[in-house]
């Protein structure tokens, strides 16, 4: 192994050096200068994000345990932008609430560690690395969910999260052990060639799938979602629903389309049913929510159902549409959570009722929110429409007409509740509207990036072509 082949792990090495640098900086910075940690972390991560877009070779390291290709590289870039936006959006909250308690740096350390776990997870070449990546991406988030430890709900959210995550990863590990027992190897390459659909393999696959389904909060495993999102700090709810879910969906896609392809006749109907259940449950529950975080939680469950729609196909078109949709979803949800974050960190209000009359006091914020919700619902001018449209095309191309029809029904339902928020903001005149406020520059930048992402993905079509080209790697 040559030294420069380590460059393949550029993302990971850079991010880990940032973690170490921040750790050391935290030691040596005097107590009254802690606010500069936020700027430092943002600058570091900004550089990391920018460097991440430099082209990277294809290949695998450590005897196939770590692999990278252009698609994985691209997706890491997307995750980077997402996390960067998220950091920008949470800078204000950190500075205002957390620094006083001497807990600013830990936020970055834990978040970056979790992101590092996702890198390792999506470029894993064997089940061991996959599992460790999964753990590394989950554990720090539990600590982050308890970040506002003085709030009771925050601690509760963390406990709920860690318990369900532990169960899920245990189940998943059991499944992996069965796959290992039947195939005698943990490397994806080896398993791909020996995997056959015996009873034990199927059992292993189902258990393994359950663990990942927990991460994406597919329906039978979604119970933690709303409670955790509501209790955790908004940044973390946003992280869970955007970055964590995106990465998990991506790795699920890779695994299903490559390693577990021999079991396609099993997972196809499974995903079919789960997609329907997830969409309907998410959408129907979202109808009744009053708290914005819970509302977004259920909406994100419903979105996960749409992701499955693309996964069912198992073709290159499916890969491309899933990645495209997930990318759009990341930006749209980031915008929505960003607005909730901006309002909450200024006024502490999180209920839908509080948003009434927002347009009169804060027109820019409500415009951003409207765009984000339109994108989530899939209304033409913004990217979300194309994302859903392509997904439906992919599903229809494999002949799943009924599934597409039911998905369209779901889009209609979701449109209703997204419009409820928009109605509250634009048409209602609240009794006690949120007063006008100016966000800090970081927040503005964060929202700007999210909106630009949504618009660019929707209006600039070469991006989709680029993703389609990349997705040839997995079929």
């Amino acid at each position: 192994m040559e030294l420069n082949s380590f460059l393949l792990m550029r993302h990971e090495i850079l991010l880990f050096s940032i973690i170490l640098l921040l750790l050391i900086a935290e030691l040596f910075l005097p107590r009254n200068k802690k606010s500069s940690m936020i700027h430092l972390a943002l600058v570091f991560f900004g550089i990391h994000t920018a460097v991440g877009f430099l082209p990277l070779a294809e290949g695998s390291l450590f005897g196939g345990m770590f692999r990278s290709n252009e698609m994985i590289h691209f997706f890491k870039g997307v995750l980077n932008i997402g996390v960067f936006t998220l950091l920008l959006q949470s800078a204000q909250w950190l500075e205002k609430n957390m620094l006083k308690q001497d807990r600013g740096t830990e936020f970055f350390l834990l978040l970056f560690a979790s992101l590092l776990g996702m890198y390792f997870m999506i470029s894993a070449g064997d089940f061991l690395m996959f599992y460790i990546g999964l753990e590394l991406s989950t554990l720090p988030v539990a600590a982050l969910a308890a970040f506002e430890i003085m709030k009771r709900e925050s601690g509760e959210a963390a406990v709920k999260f860690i318990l369900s995550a532990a169960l899920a990863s245990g189940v998943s590990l059991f499944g992996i052990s069965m796959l290992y027992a039947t195939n005698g190897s943990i490397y994806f390459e080896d398993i791909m060639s020996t995997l056959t659909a015996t009873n034990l393999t199927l059992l292993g696959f189902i258990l393994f799938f359950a663990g990942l389904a927990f991460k994406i909060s597919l329906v039978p495993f979604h119970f933690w979602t709303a409670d955790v999102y509501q209790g955790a700090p908004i940044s973390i709810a946003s992280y869970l629903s955007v970055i964590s879910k995106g990465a998990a969906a991506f790795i699920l896609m890779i695994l299903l389309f490559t390693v577990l392809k021999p079991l396609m006749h099993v997972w196809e109907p499974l995903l079919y049913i789960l997609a329907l259940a997830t969409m309907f449950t998410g959408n129907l529950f979202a109808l009744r929510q009053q708290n914005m975080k819970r509302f977004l939680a259920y909406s994100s469950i419903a979105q996960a159902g749409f992701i499955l729609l693309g996964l069912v196909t198992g073709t290159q078109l499916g890969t491309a549409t899933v990645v495209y949709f997930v990318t759009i979803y990341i930006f749209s949800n980031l915008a929505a959570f960003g607005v909730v974050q901006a309002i909450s960190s200024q006024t502490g209000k999180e209920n839908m009722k509080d948003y009434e009359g927002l347009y009169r006091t804060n027109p820019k914020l409500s415009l951003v929110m409207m765009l984000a919700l339109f994108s989530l619902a899939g209304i033409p001018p913004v990217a979300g429409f194309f994302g859903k449209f392509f997904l439906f095309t992919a599903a229809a191309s494999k002949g799943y007409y009924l599934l597409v029809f039911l998905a369209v029904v779901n889009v209609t339902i979701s449109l209703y509740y997204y419009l409820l928020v928009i109605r509250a903001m634009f048409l209602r005149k609240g009794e006690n509207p949120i007063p006008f406020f100016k966000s800090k520059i970081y927040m503005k930048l964060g929202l700007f990036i999210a909106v630009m992402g949504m618009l660019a993905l929707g209006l600039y079509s070469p991006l989709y072509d680029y993703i389609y080209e990349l997705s040839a790697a997995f079929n």
Partner: protein
Amino acid sequence: MEKVIFYLLAIIMVASAIASVSSRRMLRSVVYLLFVLIGAAGLYFLMDYNFLAAIQLTVYAGGIVVLIIFSVLLIQHIEMELEIAKSSRRWFSALLCLMGLSIFLGTIYSHPFAVAETTSTTTVAEIGRALLSFEKGGFILPFEVISILLLAAMIGAITIAKGGKEIKQEVPESLDIDKILQDAKQQAEEKVMELESSTKN
């Protein structure tokens, strides 16, 4: 001989596992759990996986169980007993567990596993080399990534243990007109008194 020891260990493990989940005293559950873990270590010894057995003893029995006992010592009093679910629920969950168990056992036993012809004792040196090898079959990358995982877990634990103060939402002070008026009045009176005393002198 080996078979006898195996079944002895297995019976101890299963019995302790059942006792562990059904005991109403928390610490007793932990001790039963300890027996399960020690039993597993015994199985490893039986299979000549000495290193793994010792790891099982140090990490699980000596490390994790001690930590669990510690936290039980901190939060539980000796006279406290865990709640017991309604009997209908207990039967229901027992039934579910049995169903799950039968599915798993049925599947595992019906699978035609290939029996290894030769077994060899893994030496510590081999394990060490495998841990540091970066060829196929080497584990250096997971080894390093786990160290990052532990670092992150440590930071997370410190973050939670550090605690924090109550966040006070900055509420703009409401104008208490009465109080302001009263203060002003008091100040004015003091001024007048002062003036009066100074003119007297």
